[in-house]
């Protein structure tokens, strides 16, 4: 109770914080407050997501109606859509930039950047990040990376168009595709800035979690969100530098005539002087980041959904330790599975066998997580808030997309599925849709914490159902195209007789995609409207246990007026028998909940156990405890 009483006084404390004057610029632009930086990441991420979604609609239009002309495309795209039809080169640019933006700018920075920044200090009880300045730099490097990436749409030769994996030699030779000229240079610069940004962020997250936890917050009392962000940050720190190394070598190959990735190349009859390099090297370097990157994308989403599902089921997350260990397992294993992207690239087949084994092992911790989610729902008391809906959607996508991973992770099956629509369907479900749903669950859940206002729940419901249905309508049929041997990144299906039977499916998928895109208008309206006009949020709208809900609704630099609250228990004491409410915040000491304490709670502390026993003897249990 004491903590809640404390917050009522925050208005008085607010004056104390007047000593460092906040100007418009220091508050909203070059802010060093983790909450503001989180909002900056989120809004930038949302804008980038809208752009990337727009790009996907453009290429979906091309796929659905390859021989129709759309004059409005020419209005917007000019020479890239002459006569109202998207050109083949530009189609590849669209898929490339769509992938790059979604993977890096939306699902890495927008998801991890937003929620790590917001929740790490608030949930572990810190006043801010370990290095607020580095944190600010992290955002501005990210912002610059976004600007440079988008700027590549405004140059003569167009943006990078070698696919988001930018395999050389295609990405190294401007003669191979126009996008590999200036556009590719900008892609590389943007990526270096982005990696710098995520390293600054990651180092900050790790050091904050390790050093700045409040009193009583030991590692095993951290919410699963924090565990997920922690392990994600470690993954990023260890894998992103490898991408930079690869990128620098590619810059050298492109601009300074080296041959790291190039050898024996003849463009038409033009014999290039490069000798001795190997395009496979890039693939190793890229996927050494690229595969952990997949988990960098999905782990924060899993962390968020763990928290959201537990809160809204009014039940402790099932198997907290197993959840943490499976996250650790995924983290470790994700470093030794990158080769499954390269089964048929000409890598030594011996390696193919090894990578297949490690890849399928990683399915075990993923399965454990899924079953634990299901067990958490079992006999819960489920409140379907918009956040909860999205978290359930995430579990569904994670199952559907994860299972198709068993096909692709199997080297023998991958031979025929590699680079087909099956892959597209697989990763759009498991890391695209699932991670986006995790992000949206996070936005709906922590919006009150971010902006002090509530979002409109009914628009959230509408948003969820439209998006959930549309996402399945878009991605489920695509599996079958892949199984029929339709390769991805095909500009049109018109040149192959056997692909013509899929044209109607393409039209259907495009309409579903348009429906999904329009459904996001419900979200965007809700989000931006609620920032200014939403209902003012109560202190703890979801009746949640974690620390962030003890901080005052109105933000203040330093998060808590007065002392930082002390933590006494794990974050998942929901519906504990013997307690009159169905949640016990982490800040409530066991001495105040004698009736509901369990022997397990004291972690072998004999003194505390004795006190509890004495109390129980003195207060015999009256029947009907729960």
């Amino acid at each position, binding site marked *: 109770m004491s903590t809640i009483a404390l917050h009522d006084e925050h208005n008085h404390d607010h004056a104390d914080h007047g000593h460092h004057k906040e100007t418009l610029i220091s508050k909203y632009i070059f802010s060093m407050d983790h909450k503001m930086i989180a909002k900056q990441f989120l809004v930038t991420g949302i804008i980038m997501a809208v752009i990337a979604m727009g790009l996907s609609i453009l290429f979906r239009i091309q796929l659905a109606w390859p021989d129709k002309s759309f*004059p409005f495309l020419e209005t917007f795209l000019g020479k890239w859509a002459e006569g109202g039809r998207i050109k*083949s080169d530009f189609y590849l640019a669209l898929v490339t930039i769509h992938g790059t933006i979604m993977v890096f700018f939306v699902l890495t920075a927008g998801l991890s950047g937003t929620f790590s920044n917001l929740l790490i200090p608030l949930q572990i009880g810190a006043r801010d990040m370990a290095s607020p300045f580095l944190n600010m730099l992290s955002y501005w490097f990210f912002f610059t990376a976004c600007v440079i990436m988008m700027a590549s749409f405004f140059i003569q030769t167009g943006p990078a168009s070698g*696919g988001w994996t930018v*395999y050389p*030699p*295609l990405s190294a*030779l401007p003669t191979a595709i126009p996008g590999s000229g200036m556009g590719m240079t900008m892609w590389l610069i943007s990526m270096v800035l982005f990696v710098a940004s995520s390293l600054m962020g990651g180092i900050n997250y790790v050091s904050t979690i390790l050093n700045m936890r409040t009193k009583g917050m030991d590692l095993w009392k951290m919410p699963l969100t924090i565990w997920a962000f922690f392990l994600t940050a470690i993954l990023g720190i260890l894998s992103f530098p490898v991408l930079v190394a690869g990128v620098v070598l590619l810059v050298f190959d492109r601009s300074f005539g080296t041959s790291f990735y190039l*050898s*024996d190349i*003849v463009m038409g*009859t033009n*014999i290039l002087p490069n000798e001795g390099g190997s395009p496979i090297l890039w693939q190793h370097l890229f996927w050494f980041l690229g595969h952990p990157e997949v988990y960098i994308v999905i782990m924060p989403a899993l962390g968020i959904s763990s928290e959201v599902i537990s809160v809204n089921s009014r*039940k*402790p997350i*099932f198997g907290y330790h*197993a959840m943490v260990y499976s996250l650790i397992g995924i983290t470790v294993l994700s470093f030794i599975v990158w080769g499954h992207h390269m089964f048929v*690239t*000409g890598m030594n087949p011996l390696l193919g*066998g090894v990578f*297949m084994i490690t890849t399928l*092992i990683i399915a*075990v911790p993923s399965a454990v997580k899924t*079953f*634990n*989610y*299901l067990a958490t*729902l*079992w*006999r*819960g*008391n*489920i*409140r379907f808030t918009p956040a909860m809906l999205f978290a359930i959607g995430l*579990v*569904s996508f994670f*199952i559907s997309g994860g*299972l198709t991973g068993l*096909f692709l992770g*199997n080297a*023998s*099956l991958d031979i*025929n599925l*590699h*680079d087909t629509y099956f892959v597209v369907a697989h990763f759009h479900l498991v890391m695209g849709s699932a991670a986006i749903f995790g992000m949206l669950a996070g936005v709906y859940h922590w919006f009150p914490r971010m902006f002090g206002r509530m979002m409109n729940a*009914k*628009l959230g419901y509408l948003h969820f*159902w439209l998006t*959930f249905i549309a996402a*399945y309508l878009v991605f489920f049929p695509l599996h*079958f195209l892949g*199984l029929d041997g339709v*390769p*991805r*990144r*095909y*500009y049109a299906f018109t*040149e*192959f007789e056997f692909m013509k039977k899929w044209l109607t499916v393409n039209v259907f998928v495009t309409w579903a995609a348009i429906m999904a895109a329009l459904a996001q208008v*419900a979200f965007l309206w809700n989000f931006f409207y609620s920032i200014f006009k939403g209902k003012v949020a109560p202190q703890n709208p979801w009746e949640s246990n974690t620390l962030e809900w003890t901080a005052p609704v109105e933000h203040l630099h330093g998060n808590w007026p007065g002392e930082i609250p002390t933590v006494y228990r794990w974050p998942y004491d929901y519906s504990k028998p013997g307690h009159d409410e*169905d949640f016990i915040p982490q800040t409530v000491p066991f001495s105040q909940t004698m009736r509901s304490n369990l022997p397990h709670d004291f972690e072998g502390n004999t003194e505390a156990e004795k006190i509890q026993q004495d109390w129980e003897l003195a207060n015999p249990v009256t029947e009907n405890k729960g």
Partner: protein
Amino acid sequence: MSLRKFITNKTTAALAVLLTVFANTSVFAQDAAAGAAAAPKVDMGEVYKSVIFYVLVFLAICLFIAIVGKAIRVYELSREAQGKPVGINWNRVHASLFALFLVLGLYGVYWEYTVHGAMLLPDAASVHGERIDKMFNLTLIITTIVFVVTHILLFGFSYVYKYSAKRKAYYYPHNNTIEKIWTIVPALVLTVLVLMGFLTWRSIFYKVEDPNNKPLQIEVTSEQFKWSIRYPGADGVVGKKNYKLTTASNTLGIDFKDLKSRDDLMADEMVIPVGKSVKLLLMSKDVIHSFYLPHFRVQLNTVPGMQTIFEFTPTITTAEMQQKTNDPNFKYLFYCAKICGSGHYNMQKVVRVVSQKEYDEWIAEQKPYLNDDLRKQFNLPVAPKPVEAGSDSIATDSAAVKTNQMALNK
């Protein structure tokens, strides 16, 4: 009192809006009906093409949603004002929607499996492909069971355990036995899949060559955006290449100083005899492409500067496949599966699987790479004109090569 006033205002406003909308639509409908009566054929094509039309449609939908939202709000507020329990139990709504989604979704999956599942590639037409298909089916069965069961649990729990103020959730933080079970069971299932996959993979890529029955070598070279096919001549081995020798007439950069090159043949399509092992030697001139031959479950990237090798044995001829698929126009194709530039979507060649006899006839008709132009370039004596007789040309050609070799060995 003010609340009540507010509600009445809202109600009237909402009603007014609803009325206007209905009135408008009915007016439009009448107009349309009148229009239809007057001029039965109005070309709406232009209208459907215009962006503004769709923007207006979308705005109309938004308006409709806003009206529904307001109506719900009015309903809820009026319930509240009357002191009745909350208007709509959203938890119940969502629980039911999840249940509905489960039923419809499972039906949708069934529909997809049967309808789209019937549109897929026919059974594998190669020896290793049959093993791959077997593995695929096993994996499909396992994943489908897991998919259906977990989704029934997920949406089923969502339906059954929806919020009720009367109930308290069951405090159940962990159960080590259950957790062990669902760690070990997936691990075991995966072990089976891994082992099978590993053995299949090994059988595909680690082949022991039988010296008495050497596979047929075919070299495929990719470039933007076409494939070139080279068959070995009588010696059964394709000769060396050196990319530095590439010229307009020697587009593959074949090194004709290598004797094995001189009898090599070029082909417009890939023709392979059924039941005979084929060893594909894959190369790329410019960027990475991928040689994808889905009917035979063959795919391997072609990488500049590195030769990749895939060996397979076709089991079904094109003619047989035409019967099997009931499609007289059926053709095996190989095409590019790795993004390689603007022409990526159209980079294909036909593969014909034929009997050994047809193959022998066909290969005899193929022209050698080494033409007079190239002979001059490589300072080789120009060969006498080959006899214009189909089946003999191969023999004459190898004879020509022999004379050349002798000339060279001098």
